[in-house]
């Protein structure tokens, strides 16, 4: 659906993005994740044809953005970071304007408008001026604008920024629902958002893609250590000693103590050595039963911190 190859954008000597390539399949929800200034908005502005790249190609639904911009734009609904709203119009007037701008057939538009307004829940404010709406409603009208003409591709730049928690949950649910019929790229610097809605994550930092994968795979791949929580019945000091004695274990920490003879530990071990069996054997030999043993993958949050603080070359 969307093919991006070797996209680079220079601003003078500064490279806003460099050699960005990825593809998005039909029906996918892809999260674009990166800190502020990573190049998320730049990439999105290029895909939608608002600015052009210095080099590289963008193809949407088989059309090249430079050769056939109008055709590409027909397939895209775009919600930029700042929702593009005419403050002096009512919601209803504004959506009508967008529809005629996007050349939606008037007969089709009547029922579509009703559907869109119900979907983003702005029906009851449709006759109010946009400038009098709250931030949350403005964001919804911005989303409605992107949906006009039911484009196959939706590009949403930080769709939940500046909303209150309840609205964030609503918008996320809405995006997830839209994902059934649309291909969606959304950018965010909020991690839980990605794991909540996206099928795949593209992590971008300083204009370069650092990782593309599913949220689950990313956290698995990235852990340099395998980590376990283990709950053992037995005196803490002795259990620690035994655990630390196992080959491959790097670190043992007590995470919670239930009572004198029962505690949970976090064990960090080498990725390449399976330490679970020796741990079991040694503890069993010492007569301290394991009550629980659970592997802990890194949360995406930690993945992100790792990705953006270290050069994670092996990852890609």
């Amino acid at each position, binding site marked *: 659906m969307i093919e991006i190859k070797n996209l680079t954008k220079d601003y003078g000597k500064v490279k806003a993005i460099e050699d960005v390539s990825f593809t998005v399949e039909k029906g996918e929800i892809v999260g674009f994740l990166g800190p502020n200034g990573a190049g998320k908005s730049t990439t999105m502005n290029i895909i939608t044809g608002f600015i052009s790249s210095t080099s590289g190609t963008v193809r949407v639904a088989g059309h090249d953005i430079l050769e056939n911009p109008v055709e590409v734009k027909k397939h895209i609904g775009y919600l930029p970071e700042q929702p*593009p709203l005419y403050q002096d119009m009512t919601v209803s007037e504004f959506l009508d*304007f967008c529809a005629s701008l996007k050349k939606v057939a008037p007969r089709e538009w009547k029922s579509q408008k009703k559907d869109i307004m119900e979907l983003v829940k702005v029906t009851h404010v449709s006759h109010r001026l946009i400038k009098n709406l709250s931030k949350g409603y403005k964001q919804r009208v911005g989303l409605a604008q992107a949906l006009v003409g039911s484009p196959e591709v939706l590009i949403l730049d930080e769709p939940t920024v500046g909303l209150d928690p309840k609205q964030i949950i609503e918008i996320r649910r809405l995006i997830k629902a839209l994902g059934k019929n649309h291909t969606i790229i959304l950018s965010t610097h909020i991690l839980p958002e990605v794991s909540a809605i996206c099928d795949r994550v593209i992590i971008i930092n300083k204009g370069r893609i650092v990782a593309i994968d599913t949220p689950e795979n990313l956290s698995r791949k990235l852990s340099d250590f395998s980590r376990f929580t283990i709950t053992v019945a037995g005196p803490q000091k002795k259990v620690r000693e035994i655990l630390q004695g196992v080959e491959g274990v790097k670190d043992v920490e007590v995470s919670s103590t239930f009572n004198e003879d029962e505690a949970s530990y976090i064990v960090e071990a080498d990725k390449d050595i399976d330490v679970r069996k020796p741990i079991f054997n040694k503890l069993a030999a010492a007569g301290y039963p394991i009550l629980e043993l659970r592997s802990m993958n890194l949360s995406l949050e930690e993945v992100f911190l790792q990705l953006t603080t270290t050069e994670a070359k092996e990852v890609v």
Partner: protein
Amino acid sequence: MLAIIKRDFRSYFNSPIAYVLIGLFICIMSLFFVDSLNAGIASFTTNFISSMSYLLLFIVPILTMRSFAEDKKSGTEVLLMTSPVRVYQVVLGKYLAATAVFLVMAVVSLVFPLVLLIYGKPDGATLFSSYLGFVLLGMVFISVGIFASSLTENQIVAAIISFVSLFALTSISFIGNYVGGFVGKVLDQLSFIERYYEFYYGIIDITSIIFMLSFAAVFVFLTVRILERKRWSQG
């Protein structure tokens, strides 16, 4: 394109700007009207219409200042530029919307000649050609104003740029006379104000009409280039 014309035109009338401008225009013109009547009916059109066009120098920058500047500031430029329309359609839409507001103003100002027609016998032909010239001049001015508006996101800056450029453009023939020689001749040929004078002496010259329309077209084209250049910019 029609959508943009309609939206922009309505936006002029949704805000006080169109009313204030038209009101101001009519108000000041009525002062000139009385003054021109005192000067006698013979030189009426010349006096009156020429003062009308000087007033345009102030009116048009205020009319066009928000055209693109406001879109840039409020972020709606993104909406226009990422919609399946071509850049020239956006520019032309905005240009025609401002021209439509100007035409409304011109129609309202017909009240003055109307008074003349009722109470006197002005030369109808001169009156007609003067008005034609006035409308063409307005269209030229608006193209410059739109161009200025596309250069900045600050409306005040846009208004000042267009006022200064319009002032410079209307002074070309004075400068031409002053410099003299070949340069003077070139400047004289470029001056649309010289062409415009012909209209209110009652001369309708097809080359002048084409000249003025091309002048407007050049600035509309330049505006398209400015907006496209921004897409390509490296800085």
